[in-house]
């Protein structure tokens, strides 16, 4: 723990000098530094192969850093606190079919808290609360593969919310969603009182939801600032293979949140 006594809560996520090379020698991260305060919504942007997924897998200790450290709400990610870290960091993976592996929605949402030892009425309450937050409480006894893709993505978010995480990490949350499901998910994410790190290619979505953005490129954080500013910087964008959709002008969008 930090010996210095501070009144402010520790940042939800603090990454310092994180470097990682895969066992085959391919180095994916070259010293990543970032800090996310409690309650912030931050977008992590970057082209394919920039190391975004590798970074995400470090946040809950699935990959262990070659150098540097990751701290979640003041708790260092490591073997000693693994169960606690995995409860605090809720990762929503890209394909909900990977995330939803239990036979019914209820059991799937219950999986995380049950693995942490929650039982009985408290477990039931957690499940209903998490499903309520994403507007899926009516589907509690349905098998996940009978739901639409958008519904499955929302349930996937609920499976993580049920663990009452410190930080919610979403990997490409808007991929494969139709515009209505996209907006519904945005409304849900905005309504949550939790720190959010959103990994995405979807730049308008990042602008809509996240006041702050980071650009990860070639294994380092290449830029960190207000999303609207980064997206308006044409040189910065093109040097990191980030492109806005045709006809989209970030300056024309009024800030929402």
């Amino acid at each position: 723990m930090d010996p210095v006594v501070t009144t402010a809560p520790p940042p939800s996520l603090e990454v310092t000098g994180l470097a990682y090379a895969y066992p085959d020698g391919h180095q994916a991260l070259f010293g990543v530094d970032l800090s996310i305060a409690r309650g912030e919504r931050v977008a992590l942007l970057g082209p394919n192969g920039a190391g975004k997924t590798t970074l995400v897998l470090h946040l809950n200790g699935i990959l262990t850093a070659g150098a540097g450290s990751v701290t979640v709400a003041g708790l260092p990610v490591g073997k000693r606190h693994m169960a606690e870290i995995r409860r605090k960091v809720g990762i929503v993976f890209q394909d909900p079919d990977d995330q939803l592996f239990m036979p019914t929605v209820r059991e799937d949402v219950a999986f995380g808290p049950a693995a942490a030892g929650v039982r009985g009425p408290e477990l039931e309450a957690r499940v209903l609360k998490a499903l309520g937050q994403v507007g899926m409480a009516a589907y509690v006894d349905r098998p996940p593969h009978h739901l639409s893709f958008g519904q499955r993505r929302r349930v996937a978010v609920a499976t993580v919310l049920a663990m009452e995480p410190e930080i919610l990490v979403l990997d490409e949350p808007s991929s494969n969603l139709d515009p209505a499901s996209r907006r519904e998910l945005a409304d849900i994410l905005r309504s949550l009182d939790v720190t959010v790190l959103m990994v995405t290619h979807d730049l308008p979505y990042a602008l809509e939801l996240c006041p702050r953005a980071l650009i990860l490129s070639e294994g380092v954080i290449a830029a960190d600032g207000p999303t609207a500013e980064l997206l308006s910087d044409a040189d910065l964008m093109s040097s990191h293979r980030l492109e806005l959709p045709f006809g989209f002008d970030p300056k024309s969008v009024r800030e929402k949140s």
Partner: protein
Amino acid sequence: MGAGHAHRLYRHGHSPVHALPPHTKLTAVFCFVVVVVSTPREAVWAFAAYALLLASVAYAARVPPLFWLKRLLIEVPFVAFALLLPFVAEGERTEVLGMSLSVHGLWGAWNVLAKGTLGVAASVLLAATTELRELLLGLQRLKLPPLLVQIASFMIRYGDVVADEMRRMRIARESRGFEARGVRHWGVLAKSAGALFIRSYERGERVHLAMVSRGYAGSMPVIDEVAATRAQWTYALTLPLTALAVCLLGWTLS
């Protein structure tokens, strides 16, 4: 458990048999089959008694006879072998409808047919009154190796996903003008099967990642406790106990 996995074998209902906890039903069916198999084949009347017992269970479960009999057809490929026995077995022979059949083979065929049919009939009843999901909970409760139960539950969850992937691959093949005609095309089908295997394997890895991320550490957390009262156990075990009485009678009389 709601509409859940409304499998084709399952018949939704609210009979006393439906309401029994799954592990009592599993135990009852297992014991019943063991008793049936250990009955001497010469005690023909005993098998009639077993059939009556099952029929009364079906009546209590409100499973219509036609539904039940139709599902028994699954047995057909397995009993084909039994029908061959009288023709190929050695030993004393007898004349039936002008054909020379082995007496030993006839008894063997009867043995396989009667015991097989009763076993399948009992299993069909179990499947008709118990949801797949509940069966898994029952197996878990009966302390089956947890890994086996997990594998079975993943098969239920991902069966449709893999089947869907297979269907998409078939559509992609056919969209490019492929049609499986004869042996020359088996290579293509084999490669598709290989690709499907690799895709499923990779999905398995991703699912494992998602599980580990939510605190999985080698064993499934208990989410639903199933418990049975003494009365429920007694009710479920009436079937195998009655069958046991019949079986013992069969041994003493023959």
